[in-house]
């Protein structure tokens, strides 16, 4: 059991949730999503996000459109679909419950 692995796995578990959350207020292209996630220290390397985005798109939670960019190649702008929004709602409740549960458990541990 390596610390790095556990950390990476923890992160990867909530990464989908984070991506959906980033896209909730407004559509964004990959670099913007990455920037938000990296600023929040949610992501260390970028590589992980690409297969995740494709997977979310393939399962119908995300959709994308091409937009011309002023500097580089055309960008893929990702946005939530209706089912994506619903999915995110459920995840939000789950996350809150989980967070409470974890903090209860960890605080109990520290009290002992």
């Amino acid at each position, binding site marked *: 059991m390596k610390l790095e692995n556990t950390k990476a796995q923890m992160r990867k578990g909530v990464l989908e949730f984070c991506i959906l959350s980033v896209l909730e207020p407004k559509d964004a292209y990959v670099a913007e999503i990455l920037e938000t996630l990296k600023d929040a220290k949610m992501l*260390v390397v970028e*590589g*992980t996000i690409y*297969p995740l*985005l494709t997977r979310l798109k393939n399962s119908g939670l995300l959709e994308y459109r091409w937009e011309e960019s002023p500097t580089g190649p055309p960008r893929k702008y990702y946005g939530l679909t209706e089912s994506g929004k619903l999915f995110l709602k459920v995840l939000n409740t789950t996350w809150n419950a989980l967070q409470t549960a974890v903090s209860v458990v960890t605080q109990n541990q520290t009290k002992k």
Partner: protein
Amino acid sequence: MKKTISINLAGLFFHIDEDAYNQLQNYLAAVKRSMQNEQGTSEIIADIEARIAELFSERISSSQQVITSKIVEDIINIMGQPEDYNIDDENHNTTNSEHTNNNTKRLFRDKENAFVGGVSAGLGHYFGVDAMWVRLIWILLVFGLGTGVLLYVILWCLIPAANTTAEKLSMMGKPINITNIEEQVKEGFGNVKEHLDKVTEKVKQQDFNALQNKSRSFFEALSSFLSILFKLFIKVLGILLIISGVFAIITTTISFFTLGIFGVTIPGIEFESLLNTTSIPLWWMTIVLLISVIIPPLFVVFLGLRLLKTGSTFLNKKARISLFVIWVIAILHLVVFSVLQLVDFKEKAYVTKINELPVTQNDTLFLEMSKNANYTKLTYRDIFKSDEFKVYRDDDQNQLIYGSNIRLIVRSTNDSLGSISVEKSSRGKTYELAKERAENVQYGYTFDENTLILNSYFTTAISHKFRDQGVEVIVTLPKDAVLYANKNTYSFHRNYNKHQDLLKNGEEEHFLKVKSNTLECLDCKN
């Protein structure tokens, strides 16, 4: 000065250094490999390429127009190692476990440096010695009773070949990451380059160093000739292996069938109860024996087939391993069986009973062996079956073991009266069991009008099993008595001098006067 390459990355145009280009190409290939299980890989790769293009264009300015390997390294640091692209938890775990194995060497067959199957080269990598030494050991083992061939075949079947770059690296004992894969690829390019250099050098040398070239080309011709010879030898060896393997399989199968018909199946139940101490049924033992005998030649045939057609597998790895495991289990079975069997032969016990024999001085004793028509037609023993054991049914249909392991010994005594001693022996797990068996050996003789008739056989109930039972009859005669032994005693006192037997082979049917420790022939011609 560096050569640059122009590339089109996601529709954008870049100048890139040659080494940076190779680095990037390796990286993308490795990323692609790590996502093999993912759906829509090409789409993901396109996204990644687009992102890389974006990052490249951020780094390009009027003063920095070319993508260098430094930039590529930066980008790889941002994007992450190929393993990071793998998001499946399941896959993630496997890559993790590979990670932990990365730094430890793993045993693979090195097909690139193979002579036969790459076992030696692989072992060489594993133990960090030159493959030549390993091969030398094989050759020695082949001459040492051929164990090397069998071992080689087993290893060949068990050790997987290093096919992927990752496997090749872990065979060499280097950690698998992008830099090492790159190194490997570079090495591959380097080899080709080296080769080309050599060729050009050779061409150059042709001009001004003809003599050296000649000798070199001579050695090259010799080595290519040797390699052809070696290949031919391998093919011939393959054919020989196939032939001998098939032959061995056929003969063992036939011998098992004949054994099954004449030795095991029909009197099988009797045979089993005679020999078997364990609860393992005989048919089971027969199958186990057959398996343990047939599988090695089967592997020999596979080896032959592989030698003939390199690179082809005629059985997949699982089948080969399970065959091998079955073989080992069969062998272990046999070992356990033999040990159990041997244990029942551990102790030997003797039961002796001495009776008076009313023979006095100047009496003449006529000695002969009897026969029982039920058991055998002959009173003398077959030379090759002197310790014959058979199972017969007596008049009440009880099964009896009939044995002819009878030893006759004649000795002299200073007493005035003769005696006869019957010593019965048997073996068993404990002394008590052995003794019980010995006591249950049935042996008889009759004495009537100076004629001693000894049974030429003993019997015992089949429940006592064959445990090396035997009977030793010592006829002790007083001095000056006369012995006349029937010819049919001959085979019961072979090797007379080993048993301090006074009655010599060849002195049957003569009147022999008993002296102290010798017999004097009264009517011999010389």
